[in-house]
């Protein structure tokens, strides 16, 4: 399920050992051990990430950047160190190309607004794909409407793969930016983003990569991809809520107008003339999410320690196991059967409503997600109201997949 990925040879992780560091994985739901298969919505947190937050608030909570006092210096140093960690993690050439955001959605909105206001004119267009999350659709719809521009869409085939042949026609001279997800949160499809970037760059069109479902599963090297903008969320990569990252090439970020105004993003303010700050602060107005950036840094350390290549290998095997196991269920059909897939598996069973199935699974302690997963257009493509989605993380086990399959079988009996 990863033919065209360049995978560093990873080794299988000792999952049982790693699970021990996740407090929530030790809990029960309705008296049954929690089987958490909703990792695409958000991942659970290892103890050290939680401890980083507790430690910050208990030992050195302070506002950053402008303080002379000890706590402020300590908080500032930790906050900025996280930026270095993230930069190293994604191999950003410059630390100041890492902008802290509230999450993927925030990052996309920043670019949609700042890029759109500067570069989009009537008749221009933005190119997205048919399998995007609402967060990578609506911001573009909004700015396109504002500027009189058009939203164009890379179509998808019935396996859930982008129809790459259409790309050359779509990438016409009206296109000012391509925004595409690396991994689909609904279908699990891993898009050939490197190829998309190459082909867009041939026509000098910049590309934004929504890596919300990639950065925790796949080695992400912004230089190797040559991506112009990359966005992702802390809470989906074992970090806290309320924090995300926008990577942008220095040249682009310097050219774009700032997004929000306020403290920190300015060099000097007067009622007559206000000068904006340099990167990264130009895009970080107001008090940052300090506890969150620090804890995100710890999550990145954690991922570096266990190794993304190893995570990728471990998850790849579990994914294949899950697909095989689910195939044993009568009437089950997968929604999304792309050649390259990761993390998320969507399916339906006969005419059972996903909501019913999800509810009966829940009562057995199994957490999956049901519905459109914030990707309504792809539901419309398949003409379905929603799917049941199981999404894995490296800490999931084959036993948990077995429980999922048994749980589904039990639910099907009840619901048929």
């Amino acid at each position, binding site marked *: 399920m990863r033919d065209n990925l360049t995978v560093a040879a990873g080794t299988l992780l000792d999952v049982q050992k790693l699970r021990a560091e996740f407090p929530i994985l030790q809990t029960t739901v*309705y008296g049954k051990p929690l089987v958490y298969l909703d990792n695409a919505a958000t991942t659970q947190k290892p103890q050290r990430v939680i401890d980083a937050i507790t430690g910050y608030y208990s030992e050195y909570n302070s506002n950053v950047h402008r303080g002379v006092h000890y706590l402020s210096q300590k908080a500032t140093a930790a906050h900025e160190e996280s930026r270095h960690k993230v930069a190293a993690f994604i191999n950003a050439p410059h630390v100041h190309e890492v902008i802290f955001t509230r999450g993927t959605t925030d990052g996309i909105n920043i670019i949609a607004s700042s890029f759109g206001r500067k570069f989009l004119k009537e008749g221009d267009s933005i190119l997205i794909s048919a399998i995007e999350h609402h967060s990578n659709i609506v911001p573009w719809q909004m700015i396109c409407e504002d500027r009189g521009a058009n939203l164009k869409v890379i179509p998808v085939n019935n396996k859930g793969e982008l129809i790459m042949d259409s790309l050359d026609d779509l990438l016409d001279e009206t296109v000012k930016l391509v925004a595409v997800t690396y991994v689909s949160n609904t279908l699990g499809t891993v898009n050939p983003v490197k190829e998309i970037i190459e082909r867009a760059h041939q026509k000098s069109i910049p590309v934004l990569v929504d890596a919300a479902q990639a950065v925790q599963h796949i080695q992400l090297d912004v230089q190797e991809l040559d991506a112009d903008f990359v966005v992702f969320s802390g809470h989906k990569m074992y970090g806290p809520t309320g924090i995300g990252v926008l990577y942008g090439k220095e040249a682009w970020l310097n050219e774009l107008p700032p997004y929000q105004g306020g403290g920190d993003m300015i060099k000097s303010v007067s009622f007559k003339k206000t000068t904006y700050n340099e990167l990264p602060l130009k895009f970080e107005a107001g008090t940052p999410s300090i506890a969150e950036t620090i804890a995100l840094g710890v999550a990145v350390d954690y991922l570096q320690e266990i190794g993304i290549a190893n995570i990728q290998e471990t998850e790849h095997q579990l994914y294949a196991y899950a697909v095989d196991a689910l195939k044993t269920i009568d009437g089950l059909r997968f929604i999304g059967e792309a050649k390259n897939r990761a993390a998320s598996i969507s399916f339906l069973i006969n005419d*059972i*409503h996903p*909501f*019913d199935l999800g*509810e*009966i699974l*829940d*009562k057995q302690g199994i957490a999956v997600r*049901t*519905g459109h997963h914030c990707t309504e257009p792809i539901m419309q493509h398949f003409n379905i*109201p929603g799917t049941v989605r199981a999404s894995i993380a490296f800490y999931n086990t084959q036993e948990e997949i077995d429980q999922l399959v048994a749980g589904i079988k039990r639910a099907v009996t*009840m*619901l048929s």
Partner: protein
Amino acid sequence: MTIQERQDQIIEDFEMFDEWMDKYEYIIQLGKDLPQIEEQYKTADNIIKGCQSKVWLHADYLDGKLFFTADSDAVITKGLVSMVVQVLSGHTPKEIADANIYFIEKIGLQNHLSPTRSNGLLAMLKQIKMYAVAYQSQALNK
């Protein structure tokens, strides 16, 4: 049966079950008893908002009483609709509008249902009460 009697009966039925599985099977079974809405009434207007699954509800006014038919694309939802319809269908608008609905709380359904479901259930009750109020004022105006 009065609205109160029907509620008490549902509460009694539920007390028989210890297991969540049995409760769900009972609910699903109730769904199968739901008086079916005619296809022509499955319109967008008759869809109740606030449910993750779709619910259509239709009211007929007959001999001073309101009768409800309904459907849902999800079987658990259908069971819940069925309970509400069983409790309230066949009563006068005034009885329905004035009814004190306590069975949901008594059987602890709200604790078991997802907030999405609870909201759906509340939306459903609200819709039925609105029908009742509408017919009541219509009756008064005559």
